[in-house]
């Protein structure tokens, strides 16, 4: 089931709606998320980094399972975490700290595998490339850096390399507000938005700026058309601008170069954008606390959800596993869901644990149901039969064994028959002799 989840910096919980029917699902309570601080971890549960008052030095990340509205697991990292992403199978959670450090946790054990200093100012957004081997981070100072995760974990290689990162882009002058990456692995493009009122298109493979587009207002969110023909930029002035990525356009309209249209319904500023899996429905979150679903083809609003009075700052479109959809009241089913939706993992660790060597040796592998086995289970007897027949024909030892058994039995039976015949013969013989003798006797008498 494809659902829209949305959260807000004020405590309105995480809203969850079925994208296609529009029905509101469970609302997960007590969440005050940071921008880009909402993630769905491997479709198993929701995680969100929390806004903290400036007095507290540690951050806070909360987990909700799909089926319960209450917070289930609370973790307190060493510093406030702003953006939060997870890889697609939900094995890792990556968070960007307010000091500019990036934290890399293993979800199943909660261990902090790595923490490295990535930026001089707070990290504002993070995403993983298509093949999940590159991490792109944007910071408050406008810097965007591309990291090879592989390199991050290779201490030896890191020492030899000139820079710990692959690329560092510093063309943005102000805070990076959002980034999105296109399709194509290492050849993908990145679109970044910044408070300097520009969106920039980068080539990941070449590490270069391809295009810079100026907007009339600050862009808070970007979403990339799945065909990568255009991208959508949600602005503070409430419009969603449609800007072309690669087409040659002359600007005949009032917005500016490369901007070919808008989606607008005169609302307050757009804060976040997400595309549905079909690539047609565009979901936008707004400062007025509503979430709008647009049809990108017709530019019409399809649906409006209402989350809170305050602004929305995260929307995601995720696929929710079906089992949590059903009621857990049934007895049989609750055992089913307990087995298939394991308890949430332990809280995330605070520090990198380098001393305890023995602990870090495991990799958790998710349960796999060997369901396919039944389908392709071969039936054996036919193969055994053909093998045995050929053995019989070749008179192998096992086959001769059976042959001998058979002959033995035959022999025994024949012996028995012979015995019977013999008895019968003896009887007959006796009978005949008796008859003859009897006759003689009667004659002689």
């Amino acid at each position, binding site marked *: 089931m494809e659902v829209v989840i949305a959260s807000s910096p004020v405590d309105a919980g995480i809203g969850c709606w079925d994208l296609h029917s529009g029905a509101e699902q469970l609302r997960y309570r007590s969440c005050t998320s940071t921008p880009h601080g909402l993630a769905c971890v491997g479709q198993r549960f929701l995680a969100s980094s929390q806004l903290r008052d400036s007095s507290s030095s540690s951050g806070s990340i909360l987990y909700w399972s799909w089926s319960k509205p209450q917070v289930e697991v609370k973790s307190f990292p060493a510093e406030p975490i702003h953006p939060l992403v997870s890889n697609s*199978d939900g094995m*890792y959670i990556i968070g960007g700290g307010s000091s500019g450090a990036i934290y890399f946790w293993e979800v199943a054990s909660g261990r902090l595998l790595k923490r490295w200093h990535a930026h001089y*100012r707070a990290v504002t957004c993070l995403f993983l490339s298509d093949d*999940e081997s*590159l991490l792109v981070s944007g910071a408050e*100072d406008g810097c965007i850096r591309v990291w090879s995760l*592989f390199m991050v*974990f*290779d201490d*030896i290689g890191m020492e030899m390399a000139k820079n710990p990162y*692959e690329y560092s882009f510093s*063309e943005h*002058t102000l805070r990076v507000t959002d980034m999105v990456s296109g399709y194509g692995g*290492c050849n993908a493009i990145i679109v970044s938005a910044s*408070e300097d*009122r520009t969106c920039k298109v980068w080539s990941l493979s070449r590490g270069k700026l391809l*295009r*810079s587009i*100026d907007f009339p*207002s600050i862009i808070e969110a970007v979403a990339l058309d799945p065909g*990568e023909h*255009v991208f959508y930029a949600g602005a503070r002035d409430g419009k969603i601008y*449609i800007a072309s*990525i*690669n087409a*040659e*356009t*002359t*600007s*005949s*309209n009032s917005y*500016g*170069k*490369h901007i070919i249209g808008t989606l607008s319904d005169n609302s307050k500023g757009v804060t976040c954008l997400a595309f549905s899996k079909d*690539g047609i429905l565009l979901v936008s979150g707004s400062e007025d606390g509503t979430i709008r679903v647009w049809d990108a083809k*017709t530019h019409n609003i399809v649906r409006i959800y209402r989350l809170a009075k305050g602004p929305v700052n995260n929307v995601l479109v995720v696929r929710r596993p079906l089992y949590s959809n059903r009621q857990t009241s049934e007895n049989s089913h609750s055992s089913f869901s307990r087995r298939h939706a394991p308890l949430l993992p332990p809280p995330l660790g605070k520090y990198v644990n380098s001393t305890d060597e023995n602990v870090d*040796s*495991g*990799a*958790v*592998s998710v*349960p*796999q149901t*060997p369901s396919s086995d*039944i389908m392709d*289970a071969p039936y*054996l*007897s*036919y*193969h*055994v*039969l053909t093998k*045995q*027949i050929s053995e019989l024909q070749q008179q192998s030892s*096992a086959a001769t*064994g*059976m*042959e001998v058994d058979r002959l033995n*039995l*035959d022999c025994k039976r024949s012996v028995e028959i012979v015995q019977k015949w013999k008895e019968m013969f003896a009887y007959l013989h006796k009978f005949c002799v008796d008859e003859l003798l009897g006759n003689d006797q009667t004659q002689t008498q």
Partner: protein
Amino acid sequence: MAVFEHFQNLYDIRLKPRLLRSLIRDRVPDEKHPFSKPSELSIVVSAVKNHGLLSESSREAVDPKHMENWKSSIDAWIERLLLLVSSKMPDKCWAGICLLGLTCQECSSDRFLASYSVWFQKLLAQIQPPSDSHFVKVASCASLADLFTRLSGFSNIKKDVTSHAGKLIQPVLKLLTDDSSGAVWEGAVDLLCSIINFFPSSVHRHYESVEAAIVSKIMSGKCDSNISKKFVHCLALLPRSKGDEDSWSLMLQKILISINVDLNDAFQGLEEAETKSNEVIKHLVPPGKEPPPPLGGNKMQGETSNQATEMSEQLILHRISMLMLCCCRMLTNPYPAQVIVPVRPLLVLVGRVLMVDGSLSQSLLPFLTVMQREFICSELPLLHLCGLDLLTGIIKRVRSQLLPHAADVVRLLTEYFRRCALPALRVKVYSILRILLISMGVGMAQYLAQEVVSNALVDLDSIAHGCGEASSTPCSKAASEGLLLPSYRKRKHGTITGFSEEQQGGVGTEMEAVKGKPITPIAVQTAALQALEALLTVGGALRSECWRQNVDLLLITVATNASNGGWANEEKDIFLLSDEPTSTRTDFQLAALRALLASLLSPARVRPPYLSQGLELFRRGKQETGTKVAEFCAHALLALEVLMHPRALPLVNFPSGDHPDFGQGFNCKFPKNIFSSGLKNNSPFPRGILGKDEIEPESNDDELYSSWLGNDEETEASASIPDKHLESRQELSEKDGRLSTEDHQAEKHPSDLPAGAQFPKEGDRGATDAAHMETGGIKDSIMAQSERVQEIIPNNDVRLQDKDVMVPTGDLTANVVEPNKGKIESSGSDSSKATPALSSEINNKVLMAAADANALPSDQGSLLTTSIVIEKGKKLVLEYNSDASKDSFPDIVDGEPDSD
């Protein structure tokens, strides 16, 4: 039976009982007559299977009377079978058991559910003591396995079946321990596997005894390798019968410890056994914890220690390889619960095995006899294969969680690869590299690229230079240089000549090893090609400059040479095949073509240099009707079509006033664009044939790709080309000769320069790309192209060189931005106000600078919005004009704003 019944055709339901009855009458043995021809049974089986004689179902509704008839015939069949099974004659009993197994598969569900327990009892009796024929036992095991396989489909009777299965375990174990025939073991272990698979809980109670029985069989080394593998498979499945995390981990832990102990024995004197072994144990058993009981229970321990003295090396190595296989199976089989894979000890173990190469450990005195060492060396490749398999298993199991260990794995592999010289091992290493590349993406590609490329170059050398007698000196010289990898340049020239000769030389040039070089087996070459394909697939774009050119050349050469001898005949290959899977010439050709396709499709900045040769190959391959090669070539041609006509398709036709404008832009552009658009319109193909002009006005989508990297305004495509020439004139005056034809253009445009060179970097490249795309688009009019190609070639050179030029510009653009920020911050005003002010300020400058650039169709708005960029461009141009321009920004050299 005597009733004569009509039936319409083959599919008529009335035929089935008739067929079944005649089978019972003529083919199936009965109590009275001796059973002479067992091959009759296979006729019965195939008849039953083909006609579905036992299925009791029909697609259309049928007369119940016919159905009744069919049913009664099946009743007769089963009655006969049960009679046979109880027969005293072993051969008849055997026939009955086999046919009962078949019935379990084939009969209808209702009948099966009604009578499976009767059948089960009958079959169970046959594997218990009074019967002593191996044949009967094996057949009953197989039939029982089928019974349970069928039963696994019915979830409603699970409890009942589990109790049935439970009854079976003891007799099966008895078969394993008492019997001495391999065939019976095999049957028993197959049965055990199906029970564990489908009804795991039935084995739960007998867990220890099953483990002990299987382990003793594996450890004894008495059975042949095929059956041993089945035992190993069964042992790997066994934890599933408990289905919890602990039993899986415990089993793996026990196996690893057992392997470790055996390795200590096997590698005596070849490594520093103590330290290595301790390392594994340390990771496996945390200090302070009890080590687990030995594999197979305590009883096993006593036995093995008794045997240890006389245990041969052969047996030890057999055990190690089997247990490693078991680990591998445990890793790759799915498991219903969440488990923790001990990656670190597994990797240490693999490393331990792979690092032993038979050389004597330096710090230890050699106390191995020569014989022992010889034996170990002869068996090491097998052990290494197991180690590599285990590594594959680990990678497959932990997937993305390999990340923290990936660097270790890569280091281990590369080190091993450097030394590994045996074909089978190399094939394995290549396949692991392939898995790593595909699963871990571009980050891994950057690490492995050099390793894969250099090894593949060596392995494919004989083909790449397989010129045989046709080769003249430069070719063989190149071949001999092939090993000296860093000599790229020489090598390139060598192969190019070799390649062209080959093209002329034609068919006669079969693969022949250049004298004095070993022939690389075809399997290794195939594996090398597949690894290259994977490398190009994931990492062709990022940082690939240093190897890409070489690999592209290699792949086209290999593919051409591979196809030169004609495409292999697949049928012939099939007949030649022995049991083991071997790599054939077809595989090789396919791998070569696949790698070539990857090389053509992998992102590059210019048109793939061997595109037309590649297309030619694929076209030729496609004509081999009915072969895999043809299938693949068709696919390749489809994939390459997109390369020819790149599309960036809009979701909808964006309504707006853009299109008329655009059309005008295009039209008025035409006279101006002497170079690129003139070319475009000369070619009838993209426009005329496709007729897109009439259908949709935004047919420019076709060309989007070409403008993708470049700039946006129509004029820039034209302006930036002379611009480039200008650069190239400045930077590479020695190349001037060729470019002189364009001089007049270049002179015409210098005034456009400030605006035209918005992104000198991009514009430059984009324009070259554009030129390439154009020439690609009109491939059919090659003749017209030739002179342009000449023009492009120097451009390529320019590109390589202007990287050096570009490096400072990167810094410069960054710096240009900084003062803006400084201003904004110092003014303390809202940035949204500051930026327009700033840009208009710049704008004025630009307008002054570009005062005579009136030819540009850009209006004020566009200039305004891109003014910062233009500013950069201008600065850049300034830099070209005077080296001192950089000095004009002395204060802002430090690019990091918050460096504290």
